[in-house]
C-alpha cells in the first residue's frame, strides 16, 4: 500500500489530475509503476548483494588475488585461505545431484502429465509439492539417519561393479560427496517434477492430436512431439534445481563430511562453499578470516552465474542444430 500511495505525488505534477485518476481506476498507471518497482528492486537487491560481497572481501582479495581460486589450503590459524576444495565439492555434489535428479525428475513429470490417470496424477503432484516445502534440515537429518545407513549397505555392490574406477575407491565412512549428491538429488527432484509437469500439461492438445493422426504411438507422441515442445520449460526447471543444489547449505553440511580436501573418490568426504560459510562465519575472528569467507560467497555467486550462462549457451546451441 505504501508503494502505491507514494506513486501518487511522483506522477501527479506531470499529468492533469482527473486524467491520472481515470487511468488509475483503469489500473494501467498503477500496475505499470508497481510492477516496474518490483522488477527494479530485484536488480537493486542483486546489485547491492554483489557490492557488499565485493567491498567486504577486499582484504582477502588484496592478499591472495586470483590464487585464492586455485589454492587448496584452508588454515584459519595461520591465515592461509584457498577456495579450490570448496569449489570442487560444490560442483561435484551438484553435478551428482543433477545426474540422478534429471532422469528421475523428468521421467516422473512425463508420467504424471501424459500417462497417469488424472486422479493419481493430482494426488501424486500434491505430495510432490509438499516435498518441495520440506525444510532442508529435515533432509539433512533423513540423510544422516536413513540414507547413510542405506548407502552403507549399497556401497559394497557399488564398489564391486565400479570399484576399478578412481571414483569409487578408498574407504567409505558414510558421509561423503556421494551421500551429499544423493541427498541433493532427493531435494531437487520435486522442483524438476512439479515445474516440468506444468510445462508438459501446457503443451497444446492439437500437437498431440496431430502426431496421433499421423500414426505415431502414444510414446512417440510424448517423446518426439510433446517433450521437445516443452523443452524450454523443462530446462528452466533444471536450472532452478541446479541453483538450489549449488546453494544448499544445511543438508549438505550434515552429510558431506566437511573435509576441505580434493580427492577423486566420491566416497571421500568433501566440503561445499555454502557449508563452510555457514559453519565458520559465526566464530570467525580476525579481519582476513571473515573477509575470506565473504569472498567465498562472491565465488559462489560467480560460479552460479557462470554455470547458468554455460548451460544456457548449451541449450541455445542444441536449439540451433535441431531446428
Amino acid at each position, binding site marked *: 500500500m505504501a508503494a502505491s500511495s507514494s506513486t501518487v505525488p511522483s506522477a501527479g505534477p506531470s499529468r492533469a489530475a482527473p486524467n491520472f485518476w481515470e487511468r488509475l481506476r483503469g489500473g494501467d498507471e498503477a500496475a505499470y509503476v508497481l510492477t516496474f518497482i518490483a522488477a527494479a528492486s530485484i536488480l537493486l537487491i542483486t546489485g547491492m548483494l554483489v557490492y557488499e560481497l565485493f567491498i567486504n572481501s577486499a582484504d582477502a582479495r588484496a592478499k591472495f588475488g586470483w590464487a585464492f581460486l586455485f589454492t587448496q*589450503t*584452508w*588454515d*584459519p*590459524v*595461520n591465515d*592461509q585461505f584457498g577456495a579450490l576444495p570448496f569449489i570442487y565439492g560444490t560442483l561435484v555434489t551438484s553435478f551428482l545431484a543433477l545426474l540422478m535428479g534429471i532422469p528421475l525428475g523428468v521421467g516422473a513429470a512425463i508420467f504424471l502429465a501424459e500417462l497417469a490417470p488424472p486422479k493419481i496424477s493430482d494426488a501424486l503432484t500434491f505430495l510432490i509439492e509438499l516435498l518441495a516445502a520440506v525444510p532442508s534440515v529435515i533432509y539433512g537429518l533423513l540423510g*544422516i*539417519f536413513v540414507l*547413510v*545407513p542405506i548407502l552403507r549397505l549399497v556401497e559394497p555392490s557399488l564398489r564391486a561393479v565400479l570399484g576399478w574406477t578412481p571414483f569409487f575407491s578408498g*574407504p567409505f*565412512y*558414510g*558421509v561423503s560427496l556421494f551421500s551429499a549428491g544423493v541427498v541433493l538429488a532427493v531435494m531437487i527432484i520435486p522442483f524438476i517434477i512439479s515445474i516440468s509437469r506444468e510445462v508438459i500439461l501446457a503443451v497444446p492438445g492439437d500437437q498431440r492430436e496431430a502426431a496421433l493422426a499421423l500414426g505415431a504411438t502414444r510414446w512417440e507422441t510424448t517423446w518426439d512431439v510433446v517433450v521437445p515442445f516443452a523443452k524450454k520449460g523443462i530446462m528452466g526447471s533444471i536450472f532452478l534445481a541446479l541453483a538450489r543444489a549449488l546453494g544448499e547449505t544445511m543438508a549438505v*553440511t*550434515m552429510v558431506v*563430511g*566437511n*573435509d576441505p580436501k580434493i580427492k577423486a573418490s566420491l566416497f571421500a*568426504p568433501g*566440503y561445499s562453499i555454502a*557449508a563452510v560459510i*555457514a*559453519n*565458520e*562465519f*559465526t*566464530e*570467525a*575472528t*580476525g579481519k582476513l578470516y571473515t573477509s575470506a569467507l565473504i569472498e567465498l560467497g562472491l565465488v559462489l555467486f560467480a560460479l552460479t552465474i557462470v554455470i547458468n550462462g554455460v548451460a544456457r549457451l548449451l541449450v541455445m546451441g542444441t536449439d540451433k542444430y535441431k531446428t
Partner: protein
Amino acid sequence: MMKRIVTQAALIAALATGVASAEQILINAAGATFPYPMYSKWFDEYHKKFPNLQFNYQSIGSGGGIKQVTEGTVEFGASDGPMNDRQMKEFQDKHGFGILHFPTVMGADVPVFNVASVSTDLNFTPEALAGIFLGKITKWNDPELMKANPGVKLPSADIIVVHRSDGSGTTYIWTDYLSKVSPEWEMKVGRGTSVNWPVGLGGKGNEGVSGQVKQTPNSIGYVELIYAVQNKMKTGKVKNLAGAYVQASLASVTAAAASSKEMPDDFRVSITNAPGKDAYPISSFTWLLIPEKIADPTKKKAIKEFLTWMLADGQNMTEALAYARLPKAVVAKEMKAIAKVQ
C-alpha cells in the same frame, strides 16, 4: 476467587508503579553459545529481582561476541576463548581504553568413541590423543593405546577421527590442549575455533559429532562435557599432568581451575593441562568481556552489581545446569577486579 483477583490487581498496580518510578534499563550483550543456558538463567533470575533491569543476550558465538563488543554495538561480550593480544589492541585503539575478562563458569571437552569390542571406559594419554588427531596413530591396537589400557581387547581396525566442522569454543579448548601436550600439533595445526585438521570428518555441532561417532564403527570424537552428561554418553578418561587418569566431571573441572598456576590479573588464562592430581586436563573457563569504561552511569552500576551477584548467588545455580562452578580463590580475585570497571 475474589481474593485472588484482588491480589492480582494489587500485584499489577504494584508492578505498574514500580515500572513508572524506576527507569527501564536494557543492557545488550552477545557472544558464546556454550554458556548461553547458564547466562539466560542468570539474566532471568536477575530480572525477577530487579524488574526494571533487562539483559538481552544474543548467543551468536564467541567470535561474534568479540566482534560486537569491539564495534561497540553491545554493552558487553562473552567468549569461550580469551581475546588475543591483537584483539585487545584493536579494542584499545578503537575506544581509547581496554577490556576486562571475567570468568563466569567452566566447561570441558571429553573424548567419545565407538569401538564395538570395548564396553568399558578407555584411557587416553595426551600422546595418544595428539597422535590420533594428527593422523599418526591410525589403528586402535597401537602400542600407545594398548599401554594405557592393559587388559582391554582393542581391535586392529582403522581409527576414524570426527571433529567439529563449525567454528566453536569446544574446538578451541580441544586444540589448545593438544597444542600444550604436543609440540608437533602446535607447529603443524595450532589452536583456534576452526583449524586445518590433518585428518578426520567434520560434524556440525556437538550433536553432529556424537551422531557421527555413534554411527561410524571404530570412530573417535570430542564433545562438550555438558552434552555428554545430558546424553549419558560413554566418555574416555584422560591422563593429566600428574599422571592420573581422570574422568571428566564438574568436580574434576573445578579442581583443574583451582590447581592451575597463578591466576593473572587480567584472567586471560588457559587451564588446559592443569597440574593438580584430581584435575581434568581438558577444561576451560568461559568469560564475560566488559569494557573498562562504561559511559552510562546507570548501566555501569547495573553491570557491576550483576557481576557481584553472579559471583555470589549466581554460582549456586551452576551445578543444576551441569556447569562447573568457579573455585573460591578465583571468585575472590574477580570481586576485587570489579572495581576496575569505571
